[in-house]
């Protein structure tokens, strides 16, 4: 699962959906003739698609018509609308400067898709961060080889949101989103560099990302290179003492290239942050640790994008953005107090419709 769908596989997938009632071999012969692609090539790719559970067909002596599996259909659906927004990398062009609504709908749908497919993964926490991660990628395009900026998802359990945004930016293929938590998949339950290089550092154990961010920021200064380091933290995550060690290190080292964004949704795993440990006055905490603090409505991606662009230009100190969010990402019928939530098929379809209509 290390690679995304190739061109031939995409072709097969879309053809299958249009050609009903063929056996696999008849289908392949037809497609080969139409496309000019050698039969053996198509055969190989079809086999891969079957192994990965996207298509099903009979076998020798027991012929059945070839068709898409449930997963196959959804992957195709995703591929289709990606075509509409002009494919990988270009996504930005298609997005109007001030209208990110469509972008966000797509990202949210992708998140729901991932989790519905896997029947695991942390939906509310991912929805909570979707806007923020989208804004970060919009402004900084981090972690790819050409980029000077780095992004660390310290609250690693929002991995599905990261993957969705990465897919939106062409770092992942949409098709891979069907394989969250599958063995060997690049989409591990938490961002895992061993499987996905663009994850610059593996996370999943809370409270560690900010220190790594400090190290990268110091590294950039030592090398005398430009670039911002952005770390996304959960609010509950701030209960880890290591965060405050890192906060002190950042100000002691004058890291005016380090940005921490706090996904302030007021809930952690087993309760409200203020009931468990009382984080308020949160902004005073960061200030007393030597940081500049900005509070922002984290549900509004345009605000986030605006603020990030401003910081990019004018940062003087390590800067904490407290982004007020909701753990349902605005999807009303998901309880924003809940940590676990796996949609049923009906809910899945409903959300999907709501989002991409």
């Amino acid at each position, binding site marked *: 699962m290390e690679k995304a769908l190739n061109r031939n596989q995409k072709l097969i997938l879309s053809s299958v959906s249009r050609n009903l009632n063929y056996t696999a071999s008849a289908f392949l012969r037809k497609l080969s003739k139409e496309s000019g692609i050698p039969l053996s090539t198509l055969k190989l790719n079809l086999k891969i698609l079957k192994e990965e559970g996207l298509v099903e067909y009979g076998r020798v002596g027991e012929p059945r018509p070839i068709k898409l599996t449930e997963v196959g259909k959804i992957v195709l659906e995703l591929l289709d609308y990606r075509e509409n927004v002009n494919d990988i990398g270009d996504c930005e062009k298609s997005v109007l400067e001030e209208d990110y609504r469509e972008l966000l709908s797509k990202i949210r749908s992708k998140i729901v898709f991932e989790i519905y497919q896997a029947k695991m993964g942390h939906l509310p926490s991912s929805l909570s961060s979707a806007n923020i991660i989208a804004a970060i990628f919009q402004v900084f395009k981090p972690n790819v080889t050409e980029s000077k900026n780095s992004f660390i998802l310290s609250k690693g359990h929002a991995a599905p949101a990261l993957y969705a945004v990465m897919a939106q930016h062409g770092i992942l293929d949409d098709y891979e989103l069907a394989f969250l*938590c*599958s063995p060997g998949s690049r989409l591990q*339950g*938490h961002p895992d560099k061993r499987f996905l290089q663009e994850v610059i550092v*593996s996370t999943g154990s809370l409270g560690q990302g900010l220190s790594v961010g400090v190290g990268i920021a110091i590294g950039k200064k030592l090398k005398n290179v430009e670039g911002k380091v952005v770390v996304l933290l959960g609010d509950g995550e701030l*209960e880890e*003492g290591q965060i405050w060690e890192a906060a002190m290190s950042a100000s002691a080292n004058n890291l005016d290239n380090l940005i921490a964004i706090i996904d302030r949704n007021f809930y952690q795993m087993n309760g409200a942050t203020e009931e468990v*440990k009382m984080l308020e006055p949160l902004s005073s905490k960061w200030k007393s640790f030597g940081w500049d603090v900005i509070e922002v409505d984290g549900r509004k991606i345009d605000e986030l994008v605006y603020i990030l662009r401003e910081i990019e230009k004018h940062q003087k100190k390590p800067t904490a953005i407290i982004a007020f969010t909701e753990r349902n990402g605005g999807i009303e019928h998901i309880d924003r107090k809940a*940590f676990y939530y796996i949609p049923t098929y009906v809910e899945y379809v409903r959300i999907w419709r709501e989002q991409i209509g």
Partner: protein
Amino acid sequence: MDSVSVSLREAFGEKLVKIGEKNDKVIVLDADVGASTRSSYFRERFPKRFLNVGISEQDMMGIAAGLAIEGFIPVATGFAMFLLRAWEQIRNTISRDNLNVKIVATHAGLSDYADGSSHQCLEDIALMRILPNMNVLVPSDSVSVRSLLEQIIVLKGPCYMRIGRDYSPKVYTAEEDVIFGKPNILEEGDDVTIVACGIMVHFALETRRILLEDNIRAQVVDLHTIKPLNKDLLRYCERTDKVVTFEEHNVLGGMGSAVCELLSEKGFKIKRFGIMDIFGESSRDYIGLLQKFELDENSLAKRVKSFVEGDSIES
């Protein structure tokens, strides 16, 4: 034998409530994963004797130490991996002062199959068994969880109990059969001894069944108490020529290593099966993951057979 009993964490959560009913010195601590560890049952029943200290494992161990000093019996709960965030605190405060803190770690081994390598804890047996004063337990099924939990609560001194998340094929029927410190011979046999802990005990029994088809008779020992290590194990192992160990842990430093240490003076031939010094990864199902790491009964039977028959292909 292969009927799945109640989930390990369910057994833990329910038993904890029962213990709380009898013993009002028991205080349960949680580092914000109570719903997952099922310590939340205790919270519902005894809200005043339950404390979610937040996502601060180090602080939790310190608080537990303080409560123990005040005469309570704190049970500090969490995911095995993240409790190790506080290893040095456990070492320098709890274990060094021999404090009466009970640590119960869930989601150990590969049992948290979805979450991947950051959550799959393959090192805790090693880290805990090398601490002076620490008692280390790895119950093999939900019956053992109940039985051993009850026993460690009354024991004086620090204890670490490791359990997986849910999967728990039945090994025992009666709680009385599981006695702290006493390894259990579950099946007799004279060709090879399988020493196992945790759910690997179930796989040891299954492996034995498969090996029988090849006329290899395995003795199966459940080593639920890894520390203190009962020296009777030595005697049990003497009944067979070769010894193998099964654990859901890195093959370095864990239970298998403890067995090697115990038997080392006697010249036994021992082979350890576990995770071969690599990290875990995500999976959508537990058994699939065990198969990937060759810890299912079929892989194990093949591997044990090749060891018993003397051609050690792997090494």
